[in-house]
């Protein structure tokens, strides 16, 4: 057996590779957005695609998010599979009308006659020192809209697999890319054939017995770090990476919480009205008799995303997660 030295790829490269492979496999796949052509996108995810596939399939659009998504709707109506890039989380908001009124509803309005197989890629979340409007965690808005799938990878391999799945899906998918993981690497080999998971399956990233950390996207590595740190305190934490917010994998999550009896939901978007409330409620409904403590949430504060020099105070970090884990000793406390 020979071992091939694999140059580790970044998440951004894996996403680009997924786009490339999807375009090569299916001529209906089109990439469009601001600066996705010659520049390769501001995060270089679409690097090289315009050269390989031409401007008709990798299109630098005018600067107008509603127009980008609205024209993509029409293209999907005609049988194409547009993959739209929104440059940053907060700049997707002008396109919300199109997303909510049309993308999410067209299949339903037309009783299945007009599905819209399109993918909206949104770089999201903070932690990269971005200025205002470049760090929003907007997942709760998307989750609250029936008709959309909402997925977010946390590893390089998932970035590839989930994006391939999203593009192949006959349902519209909001594909949330954790910006701060764009440059993260693991030993994913871009040239190896690989299977892709269907959208909607969570994965246990780390097994443990004393409590479950339920998380996704940019908070996954933070939770893994917290789990390592918790070992010193005698806690053996399980970490569940949701990968998909809609559909939600109740099975994997509930099975884990039933095993551990305790759970903390961790995400960086605001807690109030945020995904954690929904997740905690679902876990409570399904696992009430197995719970030794209330499901706790560790989330970003309920504030507009702070200026970069303060963002570390806003983002849930290892310490805040460990504090919550300590609070899970409910009986001892009360």
């Amino acid at each position, binding site marked *: 057996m020979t071992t091939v030295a694999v140059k580790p790829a970044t998440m951004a490269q894996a996403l680009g590779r997924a786009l490339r492979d999807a375009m090569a496999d299916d001529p209906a796949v089109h990439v469009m957005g601001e600066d996705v052509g010659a520049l390769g996108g501001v995060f270089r995810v679409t690097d090289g695609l315009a050269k390989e596939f031409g401007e008709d399939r990798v299109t630098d659009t005018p600067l107008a998010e509603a127009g980008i998504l609205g024209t993509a709707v029409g293209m999907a109506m005609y049988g194409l599979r547009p993959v739209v890039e929104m440059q940053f989380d907060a700049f997707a908001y002008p396109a919300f009308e199109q997303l909510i009124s049309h993308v999410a509803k067209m299949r339903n309005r037309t009783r299945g006659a007009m599905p819209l197989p399109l993918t909206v890629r949104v770089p999201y979340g903070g932690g990269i020192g971005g200025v205002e409007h470049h760090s929003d965690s907007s997942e709760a808005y998307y989750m609250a809209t029936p008709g959309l799938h909402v997925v977010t990878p946390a590893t390089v391999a998932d970035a590839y697999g989930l994006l391939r799945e999203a593009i192949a899906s006959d349902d519209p998918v909001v594909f949330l890319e954790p910006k701060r993981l764009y440059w993260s690497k693991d030993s994913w080999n871009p040239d190896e054939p690989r299977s892709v998971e269907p959208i909607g399956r969570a994965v246990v990233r780390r097994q443990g017995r004393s409590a479950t950390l339920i998380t996704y996207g940019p908070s996954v590595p933070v939770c893994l770090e917290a789990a390592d740190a918790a070992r010193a305190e005698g806690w053996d934490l399980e970490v569940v990476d949701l990968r998909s917010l809609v559909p939600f994998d*109740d099975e994997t999550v509930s099975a884990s919480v039933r095993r551990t009896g305790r759970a903390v939901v961790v995400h960086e978007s605001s807690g109030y009205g945020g995904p954690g409330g929904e997740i905690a409620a679902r876990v409570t409904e399904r696992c009430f008799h197995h719970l030794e403590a209330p499901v706790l949430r560790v989330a970003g504060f309920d504030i507009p995303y702070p200026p970069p020099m303060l963002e570390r105070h806003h983002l849930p970090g290892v310490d805040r997660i460990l504090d919550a884990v300590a609070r899970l000793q409910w009986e001892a406390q009360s």
Partner: protein
Amino acid sequence: MTVMEQRGAYRPTPPPAWQPRTDPAPLLPDALPHRVLGTRAAERVDPELLRRLYAELVRGRRYNAQATALTKQGRLAVYPSSTGQEACEVAAALVLEERDWLFPSYRDTLAAVARGLDPVEALTLLRGDRHTGYDPYEHRIAPLCTPLATQLPHAVGLAHAARLKGDDVVALALVGDGGTSEGDFHEALNFAAVWQAPVVFLVQNNGFAISVPLAKQTAAPSLAHKAVGYGMPGRLVDGNDAAAVHEVLGEAIAHARAGLGPTLVEAVTYRMEAHTNADDDKRYRDDAEVEAWRAHDPIALLERELTERGLLDEDGIRAVREDADVMAADLRERMNQDPVLDPMDLFAHVYARPTTHLLEQEAQLRAELDAEARHHEYDENDEHDPEGNTR
């Protein structure tokens, strides 16, 4: 000195190669709304087309009257009548080839019917049983669109996609004067012009957006002028002159089909009835204004042209009206039947692959319906209820 004066006039300094694309004047060929009926130009129009337009106008008006009557009987939740605007609706439908696409707004039921859609299917949105009562691919009619102007970028995208595929397809999108103020209108026009997409925008300027008159909607000299800023032709047409609307749209569509890009057409017309049956138009306009427009009625204009030229006589008029009455009677009868709806349809078309929580909710509703059915049975039989409770 004002701030602007301090800064100096805004003068971008383009690189030497930069040239303005076009002299704006040729983009705006119509000094006044283009007319055909009652002018020499009418003689060049195929009489068969004139008769066809006439028959559809009469049917359209009858349809509007019947649908409005159905709101009074509670058979339709709401109906936005296009009475007065039938020439735009009908021309928009008849000017398209079968392979072309129509993108209507909520007021454009008539255009959809004139394109061949079943009159009942066209009303389901307004009856309230289905958002879209038809398969959009069957007649190439996008769903009637309720949010203003949002269908316009769809039309651009579809036309663009068709061209990329090498198909000879044009999209025609309809929008009201109020809709031209929405951001989606501007983004759609800009995309269309930059992509040279084979799309035509028809603005039905009927004077009002619910109660707001055009003067409060825009400061532009005309809505057709808006085309110039995007670099596409802006045409102005008499929206009550069915032959003129057909001609101008026909030219715009030929232009688009030839790969020469989009056109914005402003049809100047008037909404003769209230915004919908729920609106009170006396609050924002005078009867005198409405009356003045009666003299310029689209059906009367075409009827005069046809009769004066001997292309239509009393018998012909009667035949057209009788045909319209038959359509209306059929519509009335079919709309008077209660639609049969399956509550499980609520879940049927949300996703290709339904989520688990949707499957759970589907099961919940199924159980509720079964329980309801058991209780119905019990009420009818007046016996013990199946759960063993005594009444």
